[in-house]
């Protein structure tokens, strides 16, 4: 008999037994590496895929939730999986309950990166419209980077070269390795928590270049979202020019390198000084221009005044000349008239006396004066006697 020396149990109990036995496997210490095949997501929540061995003919069904696994997955991706083995009693099927999935190798990382990038772009995290402007003259800058990295030194050096008087608030974080993501997210949160008056004008997240694996923190979805949600404008400067990271795309301003980040956040004092000088020159020119115009106005006013005066004088002189000519003529005519009148009056007088003399009277004159009284004459006086016709000289006896 089969049950001889054996224990009889139900199917359910048997599956429990298997699951209990598998619980003894130190799953926390194991990462299973394989390739994803037949990946599908149902109801936006449940993820099912097979993890295929890359060499042997072997595969494990995997089950995950989108709540735990945020990395977009795709067939052909090479991943490492952490999870717990389990037999589902309902279907009697063995599968792995996935806790975490991480792409491995450049190819898989690149694929994961492209997928996440597409997803974030669709969500609008890269939208140009939401990018904020940086103040031109920041007073306080929050710096999120590793103290040891060359990035830190480059940033501070270029900053000092260009501008002064800025307060740099540095939050040292790992920029790669297992703590990087958590620390960077916490740094953003710490800046966000600061009272408004203490908040930097901008945050700079920076690190030097590296492989896609090195940059994983800057391509992490949660970090990208932290950049997106930061209440303070964010400048991201990662690596050398050819490197790109998801954080670059989310950032308000993207810098190509840590040095470039410093160039982006502060102006060059020489440039600003030139601008100030130009401003003064322009103001001076404006004033000069105005003065010139005023001078021109005054000059033109003077010119027209002089012109007016000159033409006025000229006209006046003409009038005076005309007047004086006229006056001369008038005076001459006056003289002529007077002469004429004198002649006439003399003529008139002579006619008057002649009439009387014609009648037989005579006029006696002494020294040209008519003598009206005989007593005025004395013997020996010379007199002139005028008759109606002719006159004689006589002496009184």
């Amino acid at each position, binding site marked *: 008999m089969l049950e001889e020396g054996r224990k009889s149990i139900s199917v359910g109990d048997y599956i429990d037994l298997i699951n209990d036995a598998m619980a003894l496997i130190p799953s926390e210490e194991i990462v299973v590496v394989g390739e994803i095949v037949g990946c599908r997501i149902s109801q936006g929540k449940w993820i099912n895929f097979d993890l295929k061995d890359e060499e042997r003919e072997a595969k494990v069904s995997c089950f995950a939730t989108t709540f735990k696994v945020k990395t977009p997955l795709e067939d052909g991706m090479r991943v490492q999986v952490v999870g717990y083995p389990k037999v589902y009693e309902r279907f009697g099927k063995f599968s792995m309950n996935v806790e975490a999935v991480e792409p491995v190798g450049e190819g898989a990382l690149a694929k994961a990166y492209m997928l996440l990038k597409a997803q974030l772009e669709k969500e609008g995290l890269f939208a140009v419209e939401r990018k904020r402007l940086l*103040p*031109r*003259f920041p*007073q*306080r800058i*929050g*710096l999120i980077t590793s103290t040891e990295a060359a990035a830190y030194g480059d940033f*501070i050096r270029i*900053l*000092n070269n260009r*501008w*002064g*008087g*800025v*307060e*740099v*608030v*540095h*939050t*040292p*974080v790992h920029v790669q390795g297992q*703590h990087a993501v958590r*620390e960077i997210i*916490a*740094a953003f949160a*710490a*800046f966000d*928590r*600061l009272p408004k*008056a*203490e908040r930097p004008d901008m945050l700079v997240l920076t690190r030097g270049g590296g492989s896609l694996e090195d940059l994983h923190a800057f391509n992490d979805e949660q970090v990208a979202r932290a950049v997106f949600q930061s209440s303070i404008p964010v400048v991201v400067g990662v690596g050398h020019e050819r490197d790109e990271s998801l954080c670059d795309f989310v950032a308000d301003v993207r810098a190509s390198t840590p040095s470039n980040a410093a160039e982006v956040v502060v102006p060059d*004092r020489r440039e*600003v*000084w030139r601008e*100030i*000088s130009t*401003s*003064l020159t*322009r*103001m*001076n*020119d*404006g*004033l000069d*221009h*105005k*003065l010139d115009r*005023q001078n021109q106005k005054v000059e033109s006013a003077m010119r027209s005044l002089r012109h007016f005066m000159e033409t006025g004088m000229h006209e006046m002189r003409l009038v005076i000349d005309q007047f004086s000519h006229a006056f001369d003529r008038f005076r001459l005519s006056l003289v002529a008239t007077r002469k004429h009148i004198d002649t006439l009056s003399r003529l008139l007088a002579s006619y008057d006396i002649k009439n009387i003399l014609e009648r037989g009277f005579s006029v006696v004159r002494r020294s040209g004066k008519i003598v009206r009284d005989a007593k005025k004459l004395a013997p020996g006086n010379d007199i002139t006697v005028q008759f109606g016709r002719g006159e004689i000289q006589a002496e009184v006896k």
Partner: protein
Amino acid sequence: MPAKKIPTFAKAFSELEELTQWFETQDVDLDEGLKKFERGLELAAVCKKKLSEVENKVEKLKDKFNDLQDE
């Protein structure tokens, strides 16, 4: 960390920019222009003083961030 000081430089600089614009867009009244020019010189002096600052101060955000440093 103290509250940020009044942004004298940014203020002075933007006022200077405004003044310059005024000179270029307005029909300059001579008296007013002279006043504004004097103001411009003052502002330029303030800016120049700021430009001569060479030091940048670096401090670590310790107090609010030490939970991370301890880990």
